[in-house]
């Protein structure tokens, strides 16, 4: 008994010593909320690998950001909101200056963290997901729904349908259904689609699928009865491949199914095999494939075996992880220009995001040419881009089948304004005056 007590005491003391390891002062701590387990793991893993590999590459190639080494730590959320909040609390204070920014890759966790980040002064980078109205930086100073929101996606999807039909006037009287993941993630686009339905005169129907989405027979039977002209798919994880299989089972043409950019990666189509051929999905600007940055990744990360990535290298979600990390580190670089080459606090990184200006020349320099078009964030605009393309799965690879579409801001901007005003009223937030921000 005494031995056990002694051992336990020693262990406890050891643990106390371990929890505060000596942190070098010149390190930027970057947390990573990941899900490598659970029903959404097939999609979570490539993204997490991309995020981690880009940081590793910066460390290996350049010695960090302007000489400040990146220290990263992952925390497994399993896509669960309460676990995500726990991870956020665990990681937010680490490193000499605390966490630089968070990217939870979950709309549910984003909603919960949106309430917490203003108090902790840490920006949230929610690239292509999260609150669509957080584009309005005057009300959401800490949220950056960079590159695209669900409302942009919904708008672009309708534009693509209009183009396939041969003009926006042809939408009139058509039927478009949305098969969506029954969570904040899936519900986000509904408002934009309803608005579009009013403007263009098509019939819109929203069909929910319960989390995690492996059971959707009845939804697709309803689609077979209803025979909509197009089906939009807002799924994630195992739900996507199930949807494609069910579409095939009821004989719904796959080339009339258009997924959001979270439903358009390799793990979504490969499980359904040949049944996926013809399925279309939006692109968050970038697609799969190797670009200039991948050569550096191969040289500095893959060949040195410092990565967890295997077959997912250069896949859609891996590339999205790279892009996510690139935006974050470029925001830190922007902040360093103002605050000096040292680890940045969350508040400074926020300034960096708000003044981020990725020009075509800079994107080329970073090796991301062809993956993303120029993007400029500001106090009033935390999204910075409105364009997306459409890709199609040909059975082996994703093929880009469209040019860039630009979301119609005349429809979306009033919605952003209304929704953010409602949020501000509910939370009693006084919006910042963006004309006075430096």
């Amino acid at each position, binding site marked *: 008994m005494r031995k056990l007590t002694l051992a336990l005491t020693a262990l406890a003391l050891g*643990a106390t010593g371990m929890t505060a390891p000596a942190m070098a002062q010149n390190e930027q701590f970057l947390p990573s909320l990941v899900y490598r387990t659970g029903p959404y793991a097939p999609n979570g893993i490539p993204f997490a690998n991309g995020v981690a590999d880009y940081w590793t590459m910066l460390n290996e190639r350049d010695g960090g950001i302007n000489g400040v080494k990146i220290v990263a730590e992952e925390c497994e959320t399993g896509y669960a*909101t*309460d676990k995500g909040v726990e991870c956020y*609390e665990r990681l937010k204070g680490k490193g000499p200056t605390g966490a630089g920014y968070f990217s939870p890759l979950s709309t549910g966790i984003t909603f919960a963290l949106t*309430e*917490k980040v203003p108090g902790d002064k840490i920006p949230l980078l929610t690239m292509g997901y999260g609150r669509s109205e957080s584009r309005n930086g005057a009300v959401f100073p800490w949220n950056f729904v960079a590159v695209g929101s669900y409302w942009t996606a919904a708008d672009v999807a309708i534009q693509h349908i209009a183009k396939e039909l041969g003009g926006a006037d042809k939408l009139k009287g058509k039927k478009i259904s949305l098969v969506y993941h029954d969570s904040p*993630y899936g*519900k986000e686009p509904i408002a934009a689609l309803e608005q579009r339905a009013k403007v263009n005169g098509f019939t819109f129907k929203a069909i929910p699928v319960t*989390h995690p989405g492996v059971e959707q027979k009845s939804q697709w039977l309803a689609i077979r009865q209803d025979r909509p002209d197009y089906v939009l798919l807002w799924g994630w994880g195992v739900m996507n491949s199930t949807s494609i299989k069910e579409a095939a089972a009821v004989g719904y043409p796959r080339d009339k199914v258009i997924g959001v950019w979270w439903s358009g990666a390799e793990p979504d189509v490969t499980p359904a095999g040949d049944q996926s051929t013809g399925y279309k999905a939006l692109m968050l600007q970038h697609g799969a494939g190797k670009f200039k940055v991948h050569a550096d990744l191969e040289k500095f990360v893959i060949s040195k075996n410092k990565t967890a990535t295997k077959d997912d290298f250069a896949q859609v979600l891996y590339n999205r992880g790279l892009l996510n990390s690139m935006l974050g580190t470029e925001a830190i670089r922007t902040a360093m220009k103002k605050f000096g080459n040292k680890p940045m606090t969350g508040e400074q990184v926020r300034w960096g995001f708000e003044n981020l200006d990725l020009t075509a020349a800079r994107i080329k320099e970073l090796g991301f040419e062809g993956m993303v078009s120029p993007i400029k964030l500001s106090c009033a605009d935390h999204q910075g881009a409105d364009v997306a393309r459409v890709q199609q799965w040909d059975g082996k690879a994703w093929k880009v089948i469209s040019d860039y579409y630009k979301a119609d801001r005349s429809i979306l901007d009033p919605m952003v304004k209304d929704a953010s005003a409602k949020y501000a009223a*509910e939370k009693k937030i006084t919006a910042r005056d963006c004309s006075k921000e430096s």
Partner: protein
Amino acid sequence: MFYRETGQFKTSYAADMQIFPIRQDRIALWVVLAFAFIGIPLLDGLQVWPFGGEYMLRAILIPFLILSLAAIGLNILTGYCGQLSLGSGAFMAIGAYSAYKFGTGVDISFGLFDLSIPPLSVLPSILLGGLMAAIIGILFGIPSLRIKGLYLAVATLAAQFFFDWVFIRVKWFTNYTSSGSVVAPDLNFFGYVVNAPIERYLLCLVFVTIFALLAKNLVRGNIGRQWMATRDMDIAAELMGIRPLYAKLSAFAISSFIMGVAGALWAFVYLGAWEPLAFSIDRSFQILFMVIIGGLGSILGSFLGAAFILVLPIALDQVPHALGMPISVETVSLLVFVITGALICWLLIVEPRGFARLWLTGKEKLRLWPYPY
């Protein structure tokens, strides 16, 4: 030697009927309360590890307190009254969403007249949330008069799925937000906004202390004895003059009330913004496991069970990183599942009646120490 009630004479009925008849228990309770109410804020203020950072308060203590409260609620129903329930998540959700509706104002039009309640402040919202949960709890408790055991569990499971559906589908409950996720109003208590983690912790602590003492008192009084008699043998209880209708429905009402309050706290104090998934069937199981692991029919057990189910995985999750072991998060989270599962199995084999029973055994041993026979 130290834990013995020899010489503690009860000279009045009041002394004989105290909640904690043994002096050492009373002292221990006061020490725990003093530590929780004074010690932790002090340690937090002085930035003493591990209470210095916000992590301990926000990610461990606050959820631990709230889930303990929910476990107390379920323990009243399942542990004391013997009515198996899988609807804890639903009752928590009812508490959360009703509190949200009361906190943001209710407007219902009945055609002839309109019911309009202005936004209430947080305390009445939370308590009314509990009250709504109690009313619904009574409704879903009615089948318990006819069916028992696993069949009743299925009936409460129906409550779980029904309310999952209601809060996802009926947009009125979420004030027509586009995403279905709602944001809790400010925690404004009589003009004072509770915001810092230590204030939030104290708020939860006050709720938990009050309800735990209330529950402890209830279960040793008339009504608690009725519940326990019904649990042990309902026919015998009925023959002795206990009305099953009253006993069972009161257990459902009080249990749901406490779970509703816990749900409102979970949403308002811990999460801040939530979606129905926060109160899914997983939450029901989590709370049921807390009660079973902690010990059916024990208030202390609810706390021990909550600590085990909530804190152990979080602690295990951090061990490899703290020790500097290069294991990927994937492996760690799988290991956590394996170890927690194995521990639960082991515990239920060694002591099927949970931590509370282990605690009692320990107390018995302590009484005889150092001369056990």
